[in-house]
């Protein structure tokens, strides 16, 4: 031998370094692309991961594969023509995108919304929340490897989609909630159907709990993984179930009620870290399951006291007069706080319409909470944040 041993310092995943001499057992780091085409990135997210074996040392998120220039497009259309474009952002919760935009325009344009329309918005919105959470919970099961839960969720989501189809003729991109009201009325028959669905659905949530949430392996996989402390969540602007999973009871429906939410009685679900640590994947997941029950509660109350009346001023379907100015309004989307920043120069359409997409803010925290996890955990963490790439990339 005779050579001078050149010792290199190799960083350890848990922090610190270890001295490695030539001839020692040496590990190499590997760059791994998770996505843009990967079964568990929920679309076209790309995460470049630096791994040591299966342990993630660092990761970097790349987005933009689904960028469709929403903000540029809507500068060239009228106020009412914007709603179909908002549908295409968060395509799993289109109703909420419509709602957020409509509320922002109504606030700036001083548009009166009929009371019946407000109730319809709440019923449909909460139904949309159930549908979105079902999707999230189901695909989360898929990420963890439990395929059956996914199909159970889709079975129930199908019913909500059929209701939406009956209400507005579309299954995914509804263009239903418009500035000034909604585009069609809910007949008594539909209200009955929604009521039946809630009665049918409440026991089904227990089924999901039995099959997935309380499953030993599922808890084993998700509890204590991807822990997001509250200060980090706030620092990164996480909202919705991700923030509530870290233990802060912030829900815009309670904190800054829009629509008529102040009249309804429901609980804000927060994570308690009952299976692992506060702010882990299981907490974030469980919030969605429990929120579905709260949504059912809200729908029941709304169905009981929905008034008769108009659902929109017909002339508002053509266009809305909006005075010069700007407004920023946030609604509690199933994924977090969806904000619309609208600037008007008094003309027919928006001068500038900027969107605060909840998934966009939530996914930014991924590198922080996935450090030191395994590749299999990465999938679990991405799933627990519940992103929709249509919204991240807009």
């Amino acid at each position, binding site marked *: 031998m005779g050579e001078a041993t050149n010792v290199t310092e190799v960083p350890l995943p848990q922090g610190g370094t270890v001295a490695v001499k030539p001839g020692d057992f040496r590990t190499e780091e590997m760059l791994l692309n998770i996505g843009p085409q990967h079964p568990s990135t929920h679309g076209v997210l790309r995460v470049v991961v630096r791994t040591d074996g299966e342990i993630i040392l660092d990761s970097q998120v790349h*987005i*933009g594969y689904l*960028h469709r*220039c929403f*903000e*540029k497009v809507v*500068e060239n259309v009228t106020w009412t023509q914007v709603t179909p474009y908002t549908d295409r952002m968060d395509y799993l919760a289109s109703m909420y995108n419509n709602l957020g935009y409509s509320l922002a325009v109504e*606030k*700036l344009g001083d548009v009166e919304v009929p009371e019946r329309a407000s109730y319809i918005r709440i019923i449909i919105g909460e139904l949309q929340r159930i549908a979105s959470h079902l999707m999230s919970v189901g695909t989360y099961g898929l990420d963890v490897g439990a395929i059956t839960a996914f199909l159970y969720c889709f079975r129930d989501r199908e019913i909500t989609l059929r209701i939406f189809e009956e209400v507005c003729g579309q299954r995914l991109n509804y263009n239903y909630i418009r500035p000034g009201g909604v585009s069609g009325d809910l007949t008594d028959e539909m209200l009955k159907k929604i009521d039946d669905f809630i009665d049918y659905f409440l026991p089904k949530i227990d089924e999901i709990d039995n099959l997935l949430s309380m499953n030993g392996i599922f808890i084993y996989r998700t509890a204590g993984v991807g822990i997001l402390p509250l200060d980090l969540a*706030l*620092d*990164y*602007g996480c*909202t919705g179930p991700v923030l509530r999973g870290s233990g*802060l009871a*912030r829900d815009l429906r309670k*904190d*800054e009620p829009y629509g008529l939410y102040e009249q309804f009685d429901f609980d804000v679900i927060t994570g308690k870290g009952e299976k692992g640590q506060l702010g882990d994947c299981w907490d974030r997941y469980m919030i969605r399951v429990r929120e579905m029950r709260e949504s059912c509660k809200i729908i029941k109350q709304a169905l009981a006291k929905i008034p008769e009346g108009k659902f929109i001023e017909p002339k508002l379907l053509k266009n809305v007069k909006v005075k*010069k*100015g*700007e*407004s*920023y309004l*946030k609604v509690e989307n199933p994924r977090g*706080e969806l*904000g619309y*920043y609208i*600037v008007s120069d008094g003309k027919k359409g928006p*001068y*500038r319409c*900027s969107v*605060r997409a909840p998934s*966009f*803010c939530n996914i*930014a925290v991924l590198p922080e909470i996935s450090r030191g996890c395994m590749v299999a955990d990465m999938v679990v963490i991405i799933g627990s944040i519940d992103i929709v790439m249509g919204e991240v*990339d*807009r």
Partner: protein
Amino acid sequence: MTSEEILKRLQDQFGEAILGTDDSSLNLTVKVASETLLEISRFCRDDSSLSFDLLSLVSGVDWTDRIESVIHLDSTAHKHHLVLKVDCDHESPRCPSVVEIWNAADWHERETYDMFGIIYEGHPNLVRILCAEDWEGYPLRKDYLMPDEYHGIPNDFQQAGKRPQKYNPRG
């Protein structure tokens, strides 16, 4: 805190650095000079009566003569909002980055840079986020013209009407 109280608190603290408010906005909007933005932001976050702990959105607006960088702040404790606006030069817009105060600003500032070309000084990784890395121009500026082609992909929007009849993906 109501809007007036927030404004008063800020004016008491910073005086002349608060350039004014924007009356056309429905939310409390405070215009600040770019030199004082960091100081004011830090105060907004750390002051217990303000405690704007959640950065909601960083965005931009192109007013053709100037570009505004807009920061929307929320307080989870006091449930009030604040909008901070910084005017930037239209030719070479520059603005201090608030990433060191709220990490949430990271991606939002990258997006605003991507769309408006505002250089956020002090940002750790100011690269394009939604557009491709080699995209030219800043799409959300009002004087933006879409390039005729991008890596051989023709711009159909401008060539509407003279699109080739047969689409041949290989040729």
